[in-house]
């Protein structure tokens, strides 16, 4: 019980803060509770299949397979697979991190996992369609093209910048988080 309270303490403090808002600034408080409720609903809708897939991936995909597909020697095709996986996603960015953790645990190359995160954050296919309809095709296509370059560059640079120990620490974290 204490452990549970401790894990959720920040969430509880924020919930109390939100209730205080409701008393002090009723309009802001009310709309923030409304927004939080909508966000929670969205999360509960999108997240079950993502974590189900994560569990299945963990159990069924062998480490050797993942290393071959997205590991250190997977080359350009590994990057493409990572990009497609990220783009085919649905759901908020924070849901991508647990999946990234599994990919790392299974032996994917760090830069490929970063490409996956980049694609998930900004070139998700369902969102691209939405973007085109809201802001126009030229806007979407231009942004997509620039992002292709940007996602790859960011992943490459981070991989280069991290020392061997940094990477070791990341892989170690991934093994314990999931």
């Amino acid at each position: 019980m204490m452990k549970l309270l401790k894990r959720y303490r920040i969430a509880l403090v924020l919930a109390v803060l939100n209730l205080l808002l409701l008393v002090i600034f009723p309009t802001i408080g009310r709309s923030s509770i409304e927004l939080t409720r909508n966000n929670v609903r969205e999360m509960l809708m999108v997240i079950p299949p993502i974590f189900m897939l994560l569990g299945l991936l963990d159990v069924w995909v062998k480490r050797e397979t993942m290393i071959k597909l997205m590991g250190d020697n997977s080359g350009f095709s590994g990057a493409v697979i990572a990009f497609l996986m990220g783009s085919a996603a649905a759901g908020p960015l924070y849901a991508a991190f647990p999946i990234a953790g599994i990919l790392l645990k299974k032996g994917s190359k760090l830069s490929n996992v970063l490409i996956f995160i980049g694609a998930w954050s900004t070139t998700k296919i369902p969102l691209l369609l939405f973007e085109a309809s809201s802001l126009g095709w030229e806007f979407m296509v231009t942004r997509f093209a620039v992002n292709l370059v940007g996602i790859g560059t960011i992943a490459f640079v981070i991989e280069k910048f991290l020392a061997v120990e940094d990477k070791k620490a990341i892989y170690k974290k991934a093994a314990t988080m999931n």
Partner: protein
Amino acid sequence: MMFTIVLYILALVLLIVSFIKDTGKTKMALKKAWKSFENILPQFIVILIIVGIMLAAISPEVISRLIGNQSGWTGMLIAAVIGAITLVPGFVAFPLAAALLNGGAGLMQIAVFISTLMMVGIVTIPVEISYFGKKATFLRNGMAFLFSFVVALVIGVILR
């Protein structure tokens, strides 16, 4: 919406196939799914509440006043910062961006806003650190922040 349904179908089909092939493994997969979720749930809740409070405090009118057509580099910087700290689901972000454009926001300001909104996550940084460590997380968010200005510049040049 459509995509979520596709994702559900995919997950369910794979789950059934998995169940037929190996019941024990499937149970383990579900257990792992729940464990991973429960592991990160406190941080998810924190994110959702902060986002709710922030969005309630910063209205679209306020944003469009700050990042109008004539706001120039200051406007772009403000747009980038707002985008970096807020976290909005995509299907809210794009109509919001379109509305802001109609409300007088500049195109480049909107481009940088959309870009940091999607790529930089100040609120989600604690979650990111717990998977990637501090160095990689700060590098990724910092570079994505700067990169968002590149995106805006290219869009400004091409769509002018």
